């Protein structure tokens, strides 16, 4: 029991730390939303916790690669890289500017970003290819793609899952940030994708569904992936605009450019 208590304490500390990182990341995202260009804030805030957990767990090992396939959430990616110390300066200082590599969609020329994404779907096969490369090398490395639920409307995703299944690339993980929104509105209005978990399972994946804002559940899901002998999918239910009450769950928050006063208000209101 003593050991279990210690583990519980360790986990509490980890979660506490990750939640602190999450808050800092969201503040940086809001800073970016207040720049001259604005950003895809809704999907950035929904994917933040997933990115923090994945980067913390896997990015110290060069045998692993984590790719943000839903590249429009670049503000989240840059902000996570910043709070983890990989980017030195607050990305809001240069985001979108003519002398900056911090474009509206991720750029592989930036440290910590393996692949330029933004045209949806491509990060998934890239990560699958990386995962296959590690199997060929006899390495324990993994390939992780983080995509959106709207992104799953792209045929390339399913083409890749088919190949992943056929080649049994069991060190490949697809994390779906299911925030229910896409550019023009709700996913379920535009082109519904029912039973995402069942769809993955029908493609030969092991899939689990979690709360994508609960670091304990994310951690458990990653442990399940590591124990799995199949390609793995984490269906992470998230909230578009998570953490900012004014925009939580609102599909109109897909992209926003906000005035300075709103930036401060949103930071104060963060939950």
């Amino acid at each position, binding site marked *: 029991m003593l050991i279990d208590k210690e583990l519980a304490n360790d986990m509490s500390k980890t979660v506490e730390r990750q939640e602190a990182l999450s808050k800092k990341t969201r503040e940086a995202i809001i800073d970016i939303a207040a720049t001259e260009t604005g950003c895809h804030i809704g999907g950035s805030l929904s994917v933040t916790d997933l990115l923090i957990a994945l980067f913390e767990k896997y990015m110290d090992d060069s045998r692993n690669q984590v790719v943000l396939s839903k590249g429009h959430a670049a503000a989240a990616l840059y902000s996570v890289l910043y709070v983890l110390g990989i980017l030195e300066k607050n990305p809001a200082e240069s985001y979108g500017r003519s002398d900056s590599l911090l474009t509206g969609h991720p750029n592989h020329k930036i440290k910590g970003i393996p692949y330029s994404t933004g045209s949806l779907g*491509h990060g998934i*096969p890239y990560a699958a*290819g990386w995962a*296959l*490369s590690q199997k060929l*090398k006899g390495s324990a490395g993994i390939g992780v793609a983080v995509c959106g639920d709207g992104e799953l409307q792209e045929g390339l995703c399913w083409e890749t899952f088919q*190949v992943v299944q056929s080649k049994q690339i069991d060190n490949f993980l697809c994390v779906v940030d299911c925030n229910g929104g896409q550019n023009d509105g709700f996913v379920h209005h535009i082109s519904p994708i029912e039973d995402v978990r069942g769809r993955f399972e029908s493609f030969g994946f092991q899939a689990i569904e979690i709360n994508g804002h609960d670091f304990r559940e994310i951690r458990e899901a990653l442990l399940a992936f590591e124990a799995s002998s199949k390609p793995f999918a984490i269906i992470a239910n998230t909230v578009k605009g998570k953490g900012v009450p004014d925009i939580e769950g609102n599909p109109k928050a897909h992209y926003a450019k906000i005035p300075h006063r709103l930036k401060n208000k949103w930071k104060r209101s963060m939950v």
Partner: protein
Amino acid sequence: MTLSGRDTYRDELTKIAEDDDRILCLEADLGGKNHQFESQFPDRFFNMGIAEMTSIDMAAGLAEAGFIPFFSTFATFASLRSAESIKLAMGYMEKNIKIIAPYGGVSGGWFGTTHHSLEDIGVVRTFPNIKIACPYGEEDTRRVIREAVSSPHPYYVRLSRNESFVSLDRDDDQATIPLVNQKGNGNLCLLSIGEQGTELCKKIQEAYPEISHVHLCYIDQVSLRNSIAQLEEHGNTFLVVEEHRLAGGTASLLAVLMPDNRVYSFDCGEEWPVYGGSHQETLAYLAFDYEALEEKVKNLLSEGAEVNW
């Protein structure tokens, strides 16, 4: 026995892979049964199924880890279905991926319009950083495959189907250098691209031996720029003979790159090749044959392209 382009590719890549563990061979269900590479290196051979975009994007991940993935499927599927993957993974991010694309031009013959590829070079050439090679004959195809392995650049290699040719003699061992098949002493020079273009130019030279003929194996924009000085040694009037459309074809690019010269095109026009038939019959339907080329040459000569007989 002389091998066709695609058989040469498989043979040469399999040989190279004996000493190079980085080589991977990817197919998209069009590699055929008894694939030589698969037989010899089953662990490094991947039939990806009918999944062209996935194949190229996954190849990017494999290349990032230090492998040299060769991906082969029909030219039209490789270049058009996968155009965005080629643009991003190979052009923009310069991943070390090699595409080998048989069934170039209308070599699919009776397979029909969906399987013809008269636009592939134009599409791929718009993406910077990709080497494009269109070899003539077995020896040059082997050279190109070897050069692709040793080069850090992405490659698009356009091949034909089953016909086989003996390559032109080279003074050097690099296919990157334009090959002067025969140097005439006038101002008209034929520039041949690929197997059928080069075949036609060879035949024209039998009847018009004083016309120069240069075969260009590498036809990406950088390679063409690097060839200009050498080409200009062969006159100031050039007729590009290429199994492709004019739009995006080599002639249209060379015309801009060589503004002080006259550059003409002998190409497959704007018709859709809607009928069946052999490769040669399909080419004839598109007026890409000896008679049409000879007429074009005669017209150019009558318009003042100087040839000293």
